[in-house]
């Protein structure tokens, strides 16, 4: 490798094209402090000059749960597999929100940060990674709310079963983060030059929620469309999530395995495309 040889004598070699797989992950590691500072920035700036501060993290899922319980539970009368409705929706919303936030925020990372990226070099991957981690903080706070609800319903003796599959939780969180990140990276890279996809993503994510088992269980999906819903990689994750915490859901190794495979492919593809785009996007964004 010519590139490697040159690097022995020089600290840095800048060339027009480099191999697709030259990802500079070492560089990303060197800038890890920046990652934490960006996460801190997001968190701190979110609640500056607010009275309720971090409490705002609770309010959104809480109100969504109330509205969903009213509309989908009471008015439309959708099945919740016999689970208490608020608990059922809360589980879906919390998980879905984390994925959706990761996806929508990373899908505009080039456009939103064009200013910084155009002026100073640091591994661009730091920015989307910081988004995923900041959302994780938010997700953690919302999980607290979910745990409180679980506690409340356990106290009132509602019918649900926390079980050993809850140990899958860290893996599920990682899957949601990486899936959102991977898809987001692909979209942000594709939209630096042609912005068409950016329009799709804003309402696409909203619509995709209905193709995921957030407001209904997979078992209640009509047989004719079930395969469409199962094609959605988030379905397997949310079903597993619900199965672990509440004991109802369709957790099979096929669906979860499919979600894992889909996530890994999206992630690898996303990182490669992002890495290729970051070098010249300043000229086209």
């Amino acid at each position, binding site marked *: 490798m010519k590139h490697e040889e040159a690097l022995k004598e020089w600290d840095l*070699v800048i060339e*027009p094209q480099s191999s697709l797989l030259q990802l500079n992950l070492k560089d990303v590691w060197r800038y890890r402090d920046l990652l*934490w500072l960006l996460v801190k920035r997001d968190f701190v700036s979110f609640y500056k000059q607010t009275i309720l501060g971090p409490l705002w993290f609770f309010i959104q899922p809480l109100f969504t749960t109330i509205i969903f319980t009213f509309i989908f539970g009471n008015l439309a009368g959708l099945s919740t597999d016999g689970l208490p409705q608020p608990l059922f929706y809360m589980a879906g919303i919390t998980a879905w929100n984390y994925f959706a936030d990761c996806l929508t925020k990373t899908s505009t990372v080039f456009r939103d940060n064009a200013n910084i990226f155009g002026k100073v*070099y640091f591994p661009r991957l730091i920015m989307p990674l910081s988004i995923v981690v900041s959302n994780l903080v938010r997700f953690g706070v919302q999980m607290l709310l979910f745990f409180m609800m679980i506690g409340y319903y356990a106290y009132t003796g509602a019918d649900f079963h926390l079980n050993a599959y809850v140990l899958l939780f860290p893996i599920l969180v990682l899957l949601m983060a990486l899936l959102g990140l991977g898809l987001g990276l692909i979209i942000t890279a594709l939209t630096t030059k042609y912005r068409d996809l950016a329009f799709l993503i804003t309402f696409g994510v909203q619509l995709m929620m209905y193709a995921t088992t957030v407001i209904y269980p997979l078992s209640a999906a009509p047989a004719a469309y079930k395969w469409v819903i199962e094609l959605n990689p988030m379905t397997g994750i949310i079903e597993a999530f619900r199965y672990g915490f509440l004991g109802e859901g369709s957790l099979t190794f096929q669906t979860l395995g499919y979600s894992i495979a889909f996530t890994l492919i999206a992630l690898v593809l996303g990182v490669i495309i992002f890495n290729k785009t970051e070098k010249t996007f300043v000229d086209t964004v």
Partner: protein
Amino acid sequence: MSNTAIKVENLSKIYRLGEIGTGTISRDMERWFKTKVLKQEDPFLKIGETNDRANKGMSDIVYSLQDINFEINQGDAVGIIGRNGAGKSTLLKILSRVTTPTTGKINIKGRVASLLEVGTGFHPELTGRENIYLNGAILGMRKREIDRKLDEIIDFSGVERYIDTPVKRYSSGMIARLAFAVAIHVDAEIILLDEVLSVCLRHDDVAIGCRADDAIGIRSS
């Protein structure tokens, strides 16, 4: 061992004029087809023209930089002078890895700190102190390093009294001073400066002169 710090060979950069629209996608395909499938030379390089902003040209592809070769030795302070649109900033952007060259190669020895603009990444809601950390990290400093230099940076900036106030309440001059103070404390062998000095130099000249001694500076303004 030679003491060359920056070596630039045959550096070129082309830009496309006009808007990016539906016309661009067909050109992209043409370019992709000719270079990747037919293994021809990049057609854009042939129709590219010298960058002369005053005259109307035939093509919408221009060379912002064309076949630049130079070497800079350790200890040199180099200034780049040219008219608007001559390519000074483009060169600095390529050197600081914000964008890549179209052709050519650059070898660099030493850590690079590029100050193409002071205060990049400042967040208005954060305090001066928080912004020192954030901005320092963006410029490539480790947190430990900033901890160590914090007092020095605050001292240099001369805004100690406001350091725990959000920077949105600062005057523009104060923001510039703070940002410059952070930037100048990055440990680097090579410092690239692009019009940053136009902002905040009055009686600070001496201090900056001293620091620039141990760095190679490339300056454009």
